[in-house]
């Protein structure tokens, strides 16, 4: 009834079979399949004495241990400080770079855009290893001269070290999302404020900030949860430094003898609870999203701020960021890729330069298979996520479908499930139901789509709330039905966001580790798992060669995608 009323109010013709309900119902079923079932397995695992849903015996001992553990306060504090710090750093860096690139007359904008994206392409484990070799107390490129010249070194094995590495790595995500937000803003509102003699600070506080609020809330939430559920930095940096967060606890729970699935699931539930709090806060921050609609039927072109001589300061700041986030890690990887066993650069090591690491990765059948599989999965996952989340975003933002809040929640929830826990859950799911896809690329595709739904839904929802209904109302008044309206009005307007989501999901698919590490077989090995395997074998120099190779190939690929995306955005 409500949906019909709203749709009529929007001027859309309601066919007898109620397109909105059919679409919403199909979306609900798909989301239930992708998220409720694994979550149910997670819950069952947390209260199953046997650690398996297939051999269920109820217990509360894992939850009791997680909630009453003496170290639980420290764990919570570490997790919040780490995730909050990394999110704040990534947001600050990403937003500053996005603002400079999108809203100022800074030179070489496309160059900065490309450089800012490079850390996003590099798998987290590679980025972490690169910084390990830059900031290791004894063998770090940065610490070695510091120790020689000043007698002190920076400890990478610390919370600030973890925050720095994670924040630097996820800053490009903030950059992409905030760039889209800056692009979508109607500058006439700021111009109106300026015309009313509001100073720059007042304009920012009263106009710019409220306009950006939905995007800011979404981006901060995504960054926070991303840091909270990632496990490369906590495992490689945190554990040696005895700084434990939830994910490293989960990781260690699975490394117990025998592995404790129940404990891992119980910690996963705590992560889920923290993220649910984040979701509630996000919804509160964006509940009046319509007030911030900035894309209307009016044409506009964002105004760029003239920086004057500060252009060079901005260029210097961006160059420093690019050096720290791109050049320095790349250089250390490049160096490592030409030596057999990692060592501090010296005349001796330079005399022993070798191409053997490149030979290894080019000749290695598993690595070739992993690259091929990752590319297939990346394209498939990105396409499915974009298609599914565009529809779900429409249901949650544009309809009064009774369960739309639940849909939004379900599409978001997977972000809170650590990849490795999702992996275990999916094994149980697909071993329980008679669909034999374990050990194939299909189960990895399901895992990837499930994991990346939240990124898709946040990206498309944020974009959709900024598109006023008046355009759809106009289409409806002209007699258009749901699909033509969705296809010809909404999709073109959403295209920049959808392209952004596609590129992002494609890239993060290439580096996915947590979900894949328990789901792969030798035939379905993927890139990050291959890197993990090489790292597990201590084969850093081969990882470095693979990373250098990947960075070069992927930067070229992303450049092409970026050009297509840019054209798409201009067309839109």
């Amino acid at each position, binding site marked *: 009834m409500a949906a019909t009323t709203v749709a009529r109010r929007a001027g859309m013709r309601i066919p007898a079979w109620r397109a909105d309900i059919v679409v919403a119902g199909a979306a609900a079923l798909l989301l239930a399949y992708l998220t409720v079932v694994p979550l149910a397995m997670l819950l069952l695992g947390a209260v199953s004495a046997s650690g398996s849903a297939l051999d269920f015996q109820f217990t509360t001992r894992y939850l009791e241990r997680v909630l009453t553990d003496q170290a639980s306060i420290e764990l919570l504090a570490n997790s919040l400080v780490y995730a909050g710090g990394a999110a704040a750093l990534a947001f600050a860096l990403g937003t500053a770079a996005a603002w400079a690139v999108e809203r100022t007359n800074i030179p070489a904008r496309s160059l900065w855009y490309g450089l800012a994206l490079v850390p996003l392409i590099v798998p987290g484990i590679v980025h972490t290893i690169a910084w390990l070799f830059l900031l290791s107390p004894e063998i770090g490129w940065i610490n070695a001269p510091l120790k020689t010249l000043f007698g002190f070194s920076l400890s990478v094995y610390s919370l600030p070290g973890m925050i720095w590495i994670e924040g630097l790595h996820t800053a490009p995500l903030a950059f992409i999302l905030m760039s889209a937000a800056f692009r979508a803003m109607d500058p006439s509102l700021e111009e109106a404020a300026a015309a009313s003699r509001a100073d720059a600070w007042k304009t920012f506080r009263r106009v710019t900030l409220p306009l950006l609020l939905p995007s800011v809330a979404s981006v901060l939430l995504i960054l926070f949860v991303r840091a909270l559920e990632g496990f490369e930095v906590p495992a490689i940096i945190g554990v040696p430094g005895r700084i434990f967060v939830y994910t490293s606890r989960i990781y260690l729970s699975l490394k117990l003898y*025998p592995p404790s699935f129940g404990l891992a699931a119980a910690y996963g539930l705590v992560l889920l609870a923290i993220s649910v709090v984040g979701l509630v806060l996000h919804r509160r921050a964006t509940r009046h999203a319509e007030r911030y609609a900035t894309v209307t039927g009016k044409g506009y072109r964002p105004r760029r701020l003239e920086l004057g001589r500060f252009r060079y300061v901005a260029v210097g700041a961006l160059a420093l960021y690019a050096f720290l986030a791109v050049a320095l890690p790349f250089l250390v990887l490049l160096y490592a890729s030409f030596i057999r066993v990692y060592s501090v650069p010296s005349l001796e090591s330079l005399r022993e330069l070798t191409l053997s690491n490149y030979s290894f990765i080019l000749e290695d059948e598993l690595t070739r298979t992993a690259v091929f599989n990752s590319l297939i999965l990346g394209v498939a996952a990105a396409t499915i996520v974009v298609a599914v989340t565009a529809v779900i975003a429409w249901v949650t933002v544009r309809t009064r479908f009774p369960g739309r809040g639940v849909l939004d929640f379900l599409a978001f929830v997977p972000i809170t499930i650590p990849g490795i826990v999702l992996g275990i859950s999916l094994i149980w799911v697909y071993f329980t139901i008679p669909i034999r896809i374990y050990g194939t690329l299909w189960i990895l595709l399901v895992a990837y789509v499930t994991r990346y739904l939240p990124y898709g839904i946040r990206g498309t929802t944020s974009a959709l709330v900024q598109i006023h209904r008046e355009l759809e109302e106009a289409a409806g008044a002209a007699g258009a039905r749901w699909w033509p309206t969705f296809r010809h009005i909404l999709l073109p307007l959403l295209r920049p966001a959808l392209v952004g989501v596609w590129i992002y999901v494609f890239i993060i698919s290439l580096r996915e580790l947590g979900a894949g590490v*328990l789901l792969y077989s030798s035939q379905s090995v993927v890139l990050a798992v291959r890197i993990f395997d090489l790292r597990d074998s201590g084969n*850093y120099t081969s990882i470095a060669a693979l990373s250098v190779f990947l960075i070069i190939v992927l930067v070229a690929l992303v450049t092409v995608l970026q050009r297509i995306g840019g054209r798409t955005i201009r067309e839109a």
Partner: protein
Amino acid sequence: MRRLLTTLALGGLLLAGCGGNTATAPSPTATAKPATTDSPDAVMSRLYEAAKSEGKVAIYSSMNTDDAKKVFPVFEAKFPGVKVEHTRASGEVLTTRVVTEKKAGQDLFDVVESNLFEVGYIIDQGYTQKYIVASAGDYPAEVKGADGAFIAARLNNDIPGINTQKLPAGITIKTWKDLCNPALSGKIAVEQGDVVVYSALRKILGDTEAQNVLRCIAANKPSLRSGHTDMANLLAAGEFAVTLSSNGHRLAQLKNEENKPIDWGRTDPIITDVQGMALANKPPHANAGKLLMEWLTSPDGQKAIQSTGRVPANPKVPPKYPDLNNFAKIFYVSLALRADFDKDQAFWNSTLGVK
């Protein structure tokens, strides 16, 4: 969980026979005899004929891919048409994988091969079957289970690793207690999952002394690492001066093949982690699985393992680097060591700060 582990431990005690002992010269034993009196070559020939139609063998093994590339291609060359599908993961991850698959009724692997504690757990769950290889008589009792429950094709020596350039002057590492020297504070690394080393030290040194040693090592604020090869490589790079226990073969590779400033502590005895290998209870490629086990334990297979620098389990095939295990008695890690695993792990975690 405690009850489960107790059951496991008891099962392990029964399985282990005489594990956890030290031996100056491992002697072949005839306790586990193959089901046939055919020669290993004859057995492999028969199995190969049957394995051709199976086409491949799926092995879940912790052997790293670098070493696997030196071993499995030799098998494939000898037995054309039987491809080795190697799924590589750490012992913990392999255990997780096997247990989950089997609980769901999936039978995807033919052979599992990893640290004895993990393989012992898989055996205890009933996910393997007994199979006595034709060469079993050549192997000492310490590296094989009773009645063919498992057999090792390779051994890992857990010995203190040393970076000779980073080791402070005047310090020598000959006993585990030497790692307590305050001069090593902040210069030592420990693999966080090495509870087995502490369990072994309890047997070697006695409970009180082993606890004291671990406590004083902890006082040196060790860096907790994950992965032995990773830790050995960082040791070679100079990130720390010593490790509590590194895989001997990797230290030898770094010293002899990479010319790194690496050495190892000549402890007495040498803690040796048996890498158990067992046949799946329902192998999808049963003949190929048996064939691979036969070959890995045959002289040819042992020579392939020897070529990697690892220590072959057959004492008739010496390691490529003899100074890895010729300086003291061998202490074989056994399933019996799991009897107090809960207690050992709790002490290990609380002492070293593994949370």
